């Protein structure tokens, strides 16, 4: 597993433990004791490291290449997943994947940005950066959800909407604006989970929901700390400082009452135990859906709007 810089002391300890294990062919009591000692030390170090991750360190964890991505969550908690393609206007966008499926027996619409896990899939999914056709597909899926009374689950993991000439030509801004409007008009419950990176307008386009949850080490921001630093500090070197100032961690955003709950991650981050991470997310989604059911569409829409109108007012 690729170790992040701040994880080095942990991986060093883990290396030592592995070495000791290899050395002991016989049952050497003192070595076994040493292994025990080191293991508990490694555990403590993991706890202390991950309990006080700085915002900049959380960004590294949130963007970790081995972190479970959207399709891993689909595989882990959605049965009968049936991906649906295309915006019926221009094309298909593999950066924003969506379709029908079942969550614990209930038919749902599920969608999210997929970053990919190796060079080939990353390119195929355009690194999770959607174009207008991606957001227009999301709108189509949300309309389908309203028509067939299906709750919507969205998973957020994107650096942002794709900043390219063609995306602009086809109305990236309009597509995002309409997608936000579609979220707000959706006649069924919507739950959004920031599983990795929530990058600005490209994220909130499919995350204006009745319940918004964030993974413990995920981030959600109006601008990337790198971008913010280069504009306000006039140097990308200050990204760490910007990361802190922007208050983009799940903990900060819960304090600001902008999200509804934080989903705990396995010790050392979701990438260390993806199946545990996925099951924690499923548990939280189940809780959210049961809070929102049964639903009255008009009341649901009204409450969703009131929730956003109340945000940041006091």
């Amino acid at each position, binding site marked *: 597993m690729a170790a992040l810089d701040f994880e080095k002391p942990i991986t060093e300890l883990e290396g030592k433990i592995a070495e000791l294990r290899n050395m002991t062919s016989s049952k050497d009591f003192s070595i076994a004791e040493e292994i025990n000692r080191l293991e508990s030390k490694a555990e403590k170090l993991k706890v202390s490291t991950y309990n006080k991750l700085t915002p900049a360190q959380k960004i590294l964890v949130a963007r970790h290449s081995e972190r479970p991505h959207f399709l891993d969550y689909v595989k882990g908690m959605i049965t009968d997943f049936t991906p649906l393609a295309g915006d019926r206007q221009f094309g298909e966008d593999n950066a924003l994947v969506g379709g029908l499926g079942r969550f614990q027996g209930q038919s749902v619409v599920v969608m999210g940005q997929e970053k990919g896990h190796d060079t080939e899939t990353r390119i195929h999914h355009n690194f999770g950066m959607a174009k207008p056709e991606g957001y227009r597909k999301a709108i189509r899926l949300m309309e389908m959800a309203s028509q067939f009374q299906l709750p919507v689950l969205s998973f957020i993991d994107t650096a942002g909407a794709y900043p390219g000439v063609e995306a602009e030509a086809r109305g*990236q801004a*309009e597509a995002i*604006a309409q997608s*936000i*409007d579609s979220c707000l008009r959706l006649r069924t419950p919507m739950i959004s989970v920031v599983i990795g990176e929530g990058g600005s307008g490209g994220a909130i386009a499919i995350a204006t929901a009745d319940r918004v949850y964030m993974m413990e080490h995920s981030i959600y921001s109006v601008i990337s700390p790198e971008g913010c630093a280069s504009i306000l500090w006039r140097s990308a070197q200050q990204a760490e400082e910007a990361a802190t100032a922007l208050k983009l961690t799940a903990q900060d955003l819960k304090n600001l009452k902008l999200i509804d709950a934080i989903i705990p991650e396995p010790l050392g981050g979701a990438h260390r135990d993806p199946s545990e991470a996925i099951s924690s997310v499923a548990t939280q989604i189940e809780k959210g859906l049961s809070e929102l059911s049964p639903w009255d569409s008009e009341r649901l829409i009204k409450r969703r709007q009131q929730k*956003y109108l109340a945000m940041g007012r006091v």
Partner: protein
Amino acid sequence: MNWLTNLIRPKIRSIVGPKDVPDNLWQKCSSCEGMLFHRDLAENMNVCNHCGHHLKISVAERLDLLFDGAYKRVDVPSVPQDPLKFKDKKKYTDRLKEAQAKTGEKDAIIVAEGEIGGMPVVVAAFNFDFMGGSMGAAVGEGIVRAAETAVARNAALLAIPASGGARMQEGMISLIQLPRSVIAVRMVKDSGLPYIVLLTDPTTGGVSASFAMLGDIHIAEPGCMIGFAGKRVIEETIREQLPPGFQTAEYLKDHGMVDIVVPRKDLKETLSRILNLLMNRTGGLRPKGKIGNASPGKVTNANGALFGGQNRSSFAPHTTTVNQVDPANDRPELKESARVTASQK
């Protein structure tokens, strides 16, 4: 300081004396670099008389230009300042104070109500001089208040963005202004009232990706910059060559995102005509059956949808009292005939 301030002004000063020379007597067109005399510029609505380039115009001048006559400022409720306690090289609170001192305004939005072409209109105009017109909680609140006022007055909503996008110093608080502003325009649309956007230079980032691209009608000033991603981001990150005229009003019109590009001198006439077409519809032709009342003007208690009440959202703004419309309560022609005469004067 450019060569002009260094050379010409001292010369003029030597002729007329220092007190009579305002700082902005001459300025250079940012497009053709032609010299512009302040009086010509003012007469020409801040449009370059050499090349037709539309220079920025103050919000006060803009409102004077558009409203029929007097207009009334609408108070925007205050919001918590500096929710993040943000500090970069400078404290956000200091930046706010500077911008407030510079503009004499609380934040980057001004809400006003009055009439355009005889039609009641609430305007939400951005002040680019206030931190680049960036959208934080105060601006979002302004849009919400403008929408609520429009609904309460049965008036059209006219948004005039001039903004670089979200207010970074408010972090995620600024991002949630995207859905908040979308909710605001939805209130107006659900009431059957026109929502018009006058796109001015620049309209980018989070502002373009929310209320600014959801108008019933999009009007843009010639040459103004409209887009989601910044040119620099596109060039540097993606390394794509930008086509000529990229992200201009004309480019957006060609790509189906803007209805009309209108020179500043024709804006008032165009807006008046459109507002009358949408709000002053009397021609004797009506849909069959009961209709609500989306007709404008003094009918302050009517919030009916255009064709009956069945599509109305149950949403009610939190501060203004909105009378529920009884779909069975047909308020037909009412004051429409009176309106016609008023507007035909």
